[in-house]
């Protein structure tokens, strides 16, 4: 992982001191709320229903054990003992006090964490594949580029007051686990026919009120040019993005209105003027960042050691977890382990301070002290020796982190909804809890196979409902909670938006509707291993509509 140097630490300290001063001026009345709001947002502070909320960035999803303990400390000391991992590799604390925030920020800075640019109309936390550096299908570690872009975009003097928020995601793998196609800029590292590694650049993706899949605007960009090209995009957007209507201010609207080709031409023209300027990345500059990434010294091990094969044969529960929650590692004898934050019947993505401390301890013992956060709101141990898996499983199970439901129907992505969020129209968490109770029996869930349910409590789509295999959107009608359902969405390399299959139903019926959709799938699928998403693609939405809504 990236280890901060003195300069990184100093900048963070300077930011904390600036923020402390801003809070002091706000509390004394020197700053009005109107003036303070965007300053607090740029430090990740929202005002929610019950209290302030602090969003802390986990850049490109990588955390050390020490940092996880830092999060546990903040949860315990300044909040109510828990936090919520989001779909963008952040964690949110829901009950923080403005008066105490400067201290909380200082405590976070001590472990190299912060809330910088996790909100506001600036470039947000750079996200990537939670398996970066260990995935078998990637060509190189995308986090180096995440860090290069993070530094470039942090406190950028030109781009801190953009028309709207701006999200960048990077992947270097064949399978996109970072949902880059629903980002303002999606960067895909790949090797071209000439054997050179560079970026495919897509722009204008995003969910929310007007969802779009990003369009490729540059099929191949050399690594040295990545910052100048991002600057060109941001400059075009800063000048021409709409500022008259908050709902039309994202870059996706600009790309759509101009057309992807015309937008690409604007960017290209701007880029030609700056590409050989001061943002051109020399190999030494890239190497200096790469050198700050520390990698574990892997042992020479073999796959399927006896400790693993014996445990698999002896214990059905372990075998189930092994099959569901571990993935192939690029090094023999190692595994990638996903820690489910989706125990059946509980709020998706939440972890208590005690769990965080336990995770930190286990990461030190079993994962070289490293933890990852994925956009599915689960955590990952990226470097686990296969022979340690049975032990690790027992330890995780003891703290309720070994639910073997990763990628299954009960691994629901959900925003906090009206239980916490001031923008929400309806609740999300109770719907998720109800669905996991209805559908989340392990045998049934395994029978269903991979099936992603995403729930958003309002049109802002923080639960990414458009790209859920089954997407649920809460809408309010005359003070009552209603839910709309889409099917067929996906966030991976074949990203697609789901299609609406019927009118919104009241809260009392949403569970039944989803159960009907699932029953329809079981009827319609060609063979047991045809995934839900593939069945929808093959038969279209009509058969689902008929079976679900005909009698309603």
């Amino acid at each position, binding site marked *: 992982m990236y280890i901060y*140097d003195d*300069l*990184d630490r*100093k*900048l963070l300290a*300077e930011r904390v*001191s*600036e923020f402390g001063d*801003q809070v002091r001026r706000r509390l004394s009345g*020197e700053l009005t709320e109107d*003036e303070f709001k*965007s*300053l607090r947002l740029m430090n990740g502070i929202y005002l929610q229903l019950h209290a302030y909320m602090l969003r802390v960035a986990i850049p490109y999803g990588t955390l050390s054990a020490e940092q996880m303990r830092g999060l546990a400390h903040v949860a315990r000391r300044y909040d109510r003992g828990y936090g919520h991992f989001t779909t963008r590799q952040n964690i949110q604390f829901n009950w923080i006090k403005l008066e105490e925030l400067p201290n909380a920020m200082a405590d976070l800075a001590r472990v190299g964490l912060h809330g910088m640019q996790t909100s506001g*109309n600036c470039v947000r936390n750079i996200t990537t594949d939670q398996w970066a550096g260990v995935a078998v299908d990637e060509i190189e570690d995308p986090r180096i580029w995440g860090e290069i872009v993070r*530094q*470039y*975009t*942090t*406190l*950028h*003097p*030109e*781009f*801190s*007051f*953009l028309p709207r928020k701006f999200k960048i995601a990077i992947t270097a793998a064949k399978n996109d686990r970072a949902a880059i196609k629903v980002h303002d800029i999606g960067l895909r590292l790949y090797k071209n026919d000439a054997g050179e590694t560079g970026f495919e650049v897509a722009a204008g993706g995003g969910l929310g009120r007007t969802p779009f899949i990003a369009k490729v605007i540059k099929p191949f960009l050399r690594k040295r040019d990545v910052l100048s090209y991002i600057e060109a995009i941001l*400059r075009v957007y*800063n*000048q021409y993005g709409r*500022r008259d209507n908050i709902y039309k201010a994202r870059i996706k609207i600009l790309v759509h209105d101009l057309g992807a080709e015309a937008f690409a031409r604007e960017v290209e023209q701007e880029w030609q*003027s700056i590409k050989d300027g*001061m*943002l051109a990345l020399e190999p*030494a*500059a890239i190497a*200096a960042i790469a050198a700050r990434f520390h990698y574990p010294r892997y042992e020479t091990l073999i796959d399927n050691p006896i400790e693993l094969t014996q445990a698999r044969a002896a214990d059905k529960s372990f075998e189930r977890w092994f099959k569901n929650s571990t993935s192939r590692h690029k090094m023999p004898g190692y595994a990638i382990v996903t820690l489910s934050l989706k125990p059946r019947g509980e709020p998706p993505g939440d972890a208590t301070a005690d769990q965080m401390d336990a995770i930190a301890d286990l990461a030190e013992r079993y994962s070289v002290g490293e933890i990852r956060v994925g956009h599915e709101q689960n955590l990952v141990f990226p470097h686990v020796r296969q022979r340690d898996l049975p032990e690790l499983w027992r330890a995780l199970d003891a703290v309720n982190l070994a639910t073997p439901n990763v990628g299954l129907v009960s691994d629901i992505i959900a925003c906090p909804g009206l239980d916490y969020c001031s923008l929400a129209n309806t609740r999300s968490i109770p719907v998720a809890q109800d669905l996991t109770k209805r559908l989340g029996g392990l045998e049934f869930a395994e029978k269903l196979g991979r099936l992603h349910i995403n729930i958003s409590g309002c049109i802002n789509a923080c639960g990414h409902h458009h790209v859920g295999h089954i997407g649920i959107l809460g809408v309010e009608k005359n003070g009552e909670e209603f839910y709309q359902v889409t099917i067929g969405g996906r966030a991976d390399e074949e990203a697609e938006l789901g299609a609406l299959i019927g009118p919104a139903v009241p809260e009392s019926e949403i569970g039944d509707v989803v159960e009907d959709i699932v029953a329809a799938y079981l009827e319609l699928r060609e063979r047991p291993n045809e995934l839900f998403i593939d069945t929808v693609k093959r038969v279209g939405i009509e058969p689902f509509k008929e079976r679900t809504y005909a009698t309603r």
Partner: protein
Amino acid sequence: MPLVKNGQITHDQFVFVSDESPISDSGPVVVSAARFLTDPESLLRRNANTGVLWPNNRKISELAPYLDRLGLVALVFPNFRDGRAYSQARLLRERYGYRGELRATGQILRDQFLFLLRAGFDTLDVLKEADVPAMADVLRRYSVFYQPTGDGRLTAAQARLSQHQTYSGIGR
């Protein structure tokens, strides 16, 4: 609204002349972009400095032919959340080589000072009097800068490279 340069309140020698008012041949004036572009040459031939107040939704490249003869370009922040003029400022300085006074006007608040200077502004029309004495502190607060602009501040990346060279030099 005090005009601040180099951290000090300074006298504004320019007078803004509205589009309807006549312009005398002497004394520094600022005119609107529309008026300036109607007849730039005769304005620039005056015996005194001419400045232009440039809106943030108009291409700054239109000014390029006149920049070496302009005494002032004033850019506008209708509110501090509208960041278009940061791009205009950097283009003026870094692409079109403008060397004259570059002024930030509108809702100019303390928490933007550093960004404004980094983008190339050298005079700030500061909205709140109380923000002026804080300027020195505000500008001293940061010593680390992650990205290069035309302001010449050393970036973290440059510092790392020179450090690296120094260390390797000592090592040998």
